[in-house]
């Protein structure tokens, strides 16, 4: 089990630094994706976008979001994503085109201690 060292306790990570933060990330299967735009619409933070459409375009009714390209996770300049690995997109995707690459784990002070990086569906014991 991981421990929080004194140094960890003292250091707040820099939120846009990839060395100090692990954010979620997704893989989109271009063969399966039918570009329906549903995942773009339901992403909590509006972090899923296509090259031409954002969540707010769909929410405001400006765009329908269909046929506007395969979505991707938006990244900040530093390369970090804002994905929290909730995978609501994967739950809603009608074509099972989304898989999750890694979980969300901030560094230092916010480091999570008993969560592992393995992601599993519910298991009926």
């Amino acid at each position, binding site marked *: 089990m991981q421990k929080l060292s004194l140094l960890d306790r003292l250091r707040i990570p820099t939120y846009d630094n990839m060395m100090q933060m692990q954010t979620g990330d997704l893989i989109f299967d271009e063969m399966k994706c039918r570009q329906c735009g549903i995942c773009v619409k*339901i992403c909590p933070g509006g972090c899923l976008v296509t090259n031409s459409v954002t969540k707010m375009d769909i929410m405001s009714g400006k765009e329908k979001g269909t046929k506007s390209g395969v979505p991707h996770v938006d990244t900040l300049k530093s390369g970090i994503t804002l994905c929290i690995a909730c995978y*609501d997109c994967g739950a809603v995707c009608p074509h099972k085109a989304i898989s*999750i690459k890694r979980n969300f784990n901030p560094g230092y002070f916010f480091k999570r201690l008993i969560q592992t990086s393995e992601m*599993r569906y519910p298991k009926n014991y």
Partner: protein
Amino acid sequence: MNIKIEDTSPIGKYEESMPWNQIEKIILERRSIRAFKKEPLPNSMLRRILEAGRFAPSAGNSQPWKFIVVKSPEILAEMEKDAVKMIKLFMFFMDYTKGNILRRLYILTYAKWVIRFMKNELHPVPMGLMSQIAHGRTLVFHGAPTLILLAEDRRGVGNPPTDIGICGQNMVLAAHSMGAASCWIGLIKVLMYLPKWRKRFGIKFPYQLNNCIALGWPSPQADATVPREVQLVQWYEGGMKDAPRIERQGE
């Protein structure tokens, strides 16, 4: 992945690795849904959801909650507008992830100290969300046609926030079991910095408002299971001196 209703186990029984029962199905498939149809749930259904909250357990049966139902489109629109305004203001002072290098370096000189003092509110997740909201990339209340605000009576027994969480989740699960959609919204807290909203909702001592639940019909239906992190669970089964066995839950 959805659990088929025909395959579910009967309630009130357990056998090893039997299929999920219908309660578990609702628990496991519940997702926070942030896209709603315009028309609100009928009032009778909202009352039914509130019943699930009224019958939640609470420490010492103190029931330290006050429910406030907001359905007025006018008020909801004003809440969204003011919440965005507040978040923009906070992010003007705190968001070092966007903007030019000088701005970012300047903010970084104090941001981490502020984060330390507001570690929960300024955790990376809400900070990221607020940054997105400030830049017009997502909404605070997700355009929900109904909100149930969960005011907490701070004089409750023991630890009232726990009771509020249980009560709210009771309502969320009841809502999903009837085909409705929900999302907890902690960001409503930003409105409590404005006396206008505290007054409007009657939030003064002993009440405090930290959370609300957005409710409506899903658009699209998005309840399904998701993978979650495997957790390391400590099992104490030996004697007083034995170290716990660490089990990987979910693997």
